[in-house]
């Protein structure tokens, strides 16, 4: 795995990102009344996945809704997103991003080599460890946003709690 090119790593991460839809319960008010309204996967900032993610979810459904991938430049645009991937480039603004998403039913996914993303209140972080993609989860953050993470997912991840400040 370690020898795989970087693009392959993001293919894997895209697949995992999509799989989160099946292992997380969103509260009913997170969805529009219209049952055809899509399940939105947002990407804030630079999109590392390329067309692969959109290709992956094209014919799939999550929570009985079609899936749509949207890209956002700022956090204000990303309101109502169900699952938001926060790219590494946004690290500097992470604090304000997470503050504005506070208590909103948006599953925040980031990536960081250390625990910083989840310590600051991000919900799921990808960690690339010797070519393997591993997960860190802050269940506390998800719970306060009204999201329920399936125990099967929790079991596979390192659990981190929000840093006390």
């Amino acid at each position, binding site marked *: 795995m370690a020898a795989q090119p970087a693009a392959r790593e993001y293919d*894997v991460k895209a*697949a*995992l990102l999509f*799989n989160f*839809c*099946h*292992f997380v319960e969103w509260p009913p008010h997170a969805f529009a009344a219209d049952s055809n309204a899509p399940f939105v996967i947002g990407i804030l900032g630079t999109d590392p996945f390329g067309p692969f993610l959109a290709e992956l979810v094209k014919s*799939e459904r*999550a*929570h009985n809704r079609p899936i749509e991938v949207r890209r956002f430049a700022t956090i204000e645009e990303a309101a109502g997103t169900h699952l938001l991937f926060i790219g590494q480039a946004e690290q500097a603004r992470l604090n304000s991003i997470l503050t504005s998403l506070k208590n909103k039913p948006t599953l925040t996914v980031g990536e960081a080599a250390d625990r910083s993303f989840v310590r600051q209140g991000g919900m799921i972080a990808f960690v690339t460890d010797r070519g393997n*993609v591993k*997960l860190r989860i802050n269940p506390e953050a998800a719970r306060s946003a009204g999201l329920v993470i*399936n125990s*099967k*997912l929790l*079991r*596979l991840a390192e659990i981190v709690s929000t840093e006390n400040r």
Partner: protein
Amino acid sequence: MSSRDSIRSKLQRAIVFTTAAVLGLTCAVFIVFEWRGLLAAETRAALNIARLAADASSGMLAFRNQAEATKLLSAFQSEPDVRTAALYDATGKLFAEYHVADADRATPTVPQNDGLRIADQRLVLFQPVIEDGKRFGTLYLKFDLRDMYARLWRYGSTAILIFLGALAGAFAIGHVLQKKIAGPILSLARIAQSISRERDYGARAERMRGGELEVLTTAFNQMLDTIQEQQGRLRTELAERERAQKAEARERQLLATTLASIGDGVIVADARGCVASLNAEAERLTGWNSADAAGRPLPEIFRIINEASRQPAENPVEKVLRLGAIVGLANHTILIRRDGSEIPIDDSAAPIRQAGGAINGVVLVFRDFTERKHAEQVMQESATRDRARAAELQAIMEAVPAAIWISRDRDCRVITGNRASFELLRLSPPENPSLSAPEGERPANFEVRCNGRLLRPDELPVQRAARGEEVRDLEEEIRFSDGASRYMIGNATPLRDEHGEVCGAVAAFVDITERKRAEEDLRRAHTLLETLLKTAPVGFAYLDRELRFVTINTRLAEMNGLPAASHIGKFVSEIVPTLAPAVHTVTTNILATGEPVKDHEFEGDTPLAPGVQRFWNESWFPVRDDPAGAITGFGVVVEEITERKQAEVALREAHAQLASRAVHLEKLVNERTAKLQETIGDLETFSYSIVHDLRAPLRAMQNFARLLVEECGPVNETAQDYANRITTAAERMDRLIQEVLNYSRVARAELPLAPVNTAALVRSIVETYPALQPPRAQVELNGNLPPVHANEAALTQCISNLLGNAVKFIAPGVTPHVRVWGETVGHRVRLHFQDNGIGIEREAHEKIFQMFQRLSKRYEGTGIGLTIVKKAIEKMGGTVGLESEPGKGSTFSLELDSVRVSPPIAAAPDSSNTAAS
């Protein structure tokens, strides 16, 4: 014969075939159901396992966690039936797998269709892994069904065994049942056959109960009855006729013989008084033969005269003819024979009457009176002799110490006996002791047994002898109705009359009850002795004078390792050669002294374990099985003591070792003690040198520093400062030395203990030191401090040190506050000293009690105070405790014995002196 075989085997075959059919079908159904049930259970279990595992694995597939997936699959180790398990991801690629250690590792490279398949004793299953409606992969499980088939095979074979067992049972039952039907028919057939062959109409078919068989046998038997009855009647008639003819012939013959052989003379005369015939005796007496006499008148042949008067006597024939009745001859009649000689006779005559009653002849009977006269005389003499003999016999019978029974009839209906016999049977003379006596007369108070068996009356000795048998040495038991028994032995012999015909029996028996009891006692004692010898835990043997084994018990035979039987007749030297010389010595000794040799120890080996040294404790004693008291052999009682001997040797060695070690240890202790004492001496010397040698230079330093300032005129500030520092340092050194001395004193001194009033002690210490008083510090006594059993001087030193530390180690700007309280725990008292000082880190709690351990360089101190406290308290039998955390103050606790018997505590002593030291 063939008919018997056919009916028997037909019935038998019918029963067995029916049973086989029913059982076979049952077994087949049972096995098929069992197979179906097992397979269904196995399938159900497999599906459940697969569902659970698939559900658990969805996350791992979704988030590509191979490590967790492998861990999940390896949990199948606890399911021995699962041989292989694998997970494929959504694209069908193998993601994780698990094999049983010895399984073939053929995992399909791609998943096949979902579902369950059974083939080749294996159950293969593909289970989709679905979460939230999305498929993430496939779970593959391979189960081994060999266990299940093995179980099924066990069931099957058990069923076949039961089947075979039941068939055997059916065969046996059939064998018994068929007899009930076939038996009677066959026996009927046999009887019919035998009747037709042997014409034995007496044979009868056995009566059967119930049904047609009874009707059949009854009719058959009735038919035979009729035939037999007719035959019987015919036979009886024939026999009777024959018997009548024979009787007639015999009578005629008998009459002729009687007349010929009769001892009296008989003359038959016809109705006219003429002679018809003479028998042989009559011919002899009269001297006439029959032919000459026939037809002549009787008086011619039979001339009789009166013996006294010599006158002719009356013709008896004429008299009978005249009177028609029997007449006797007048006594003293003389018959004049044909040759003229005379013989005295007596006679009688009787008429012979025809069937009608008319007299058609006379029979005259007469005999020679000469012989009879003589005989009468003889008889009279013999009767007297007989009476004497009878009296003798009676006396003998009464005198012999045996019971004698006599029966004078062959049926033994009456038996008499002597007094001993009546006493024996607990009867008295008029009673009839015969068990063959008619009902009512028969005695009922005893029964007779032989070897425990009840004898019937006809088996009793008198009865047997009365039938002509000689009974010899018969042992019998008379058992009375009250349970008591007498044992008898004796003979019975038949009594015969003058013709040699048996006419009764005589039996004589002696009472052997006592002998019997003695024999029984002897037998019991013998059995007991034998059992004892056989089971006793010691070995025993009896040897003859040449030391050959005569008897040996099992225990000794086991010790020698040979069967008991192999010893008999062998010499000791053949069985245990290594013991033979010692045995020879012992037995020679016994033969010489006649005294037993007891508890003699033997050593050697046995055929059981050649070369293995063993030890025995043996007692030999002489056996005098000889009326003269000579020694005929030897008895020996053997006890194996090999283990005890070995233990003794081991014990002795251990003792020796222990003794040598003790000596060594004692030497070592002495050496060490000497060395220690030397060290203590050195230390003491050292302490004194400190006091006397070290303190003097210090004083000098102090004094000269003071003199320098006072007497060398005004010194500048720097010089003043240096001088002060010299003084301070010297003081500190002095204090240090003082403390070391205190410690060595505490450590070395004896501390006599006495009740101490702790409250007064603490108060006096506080009063002594201004540093413990407001405003510099506050020492507070909470409640009453219980008195303790301690050395007051040492305790004063300890408390001074603790209070001194409490107010010394304090954060800058904080007023020291010390709280002192006490509590009684059982027979111990705890004194607590709590301060608000800087506290001590947990890691240092042990260290601070060691000498020269100072935790903070910021605070002045010698590092000996707490060491003294600990040492002193421990010497007084107490303990020191500490609870502290940095920044939260410290609490030191002293635990000492309370004052158990509470003598009135003396008023608080003035302890200010000791507190200062």
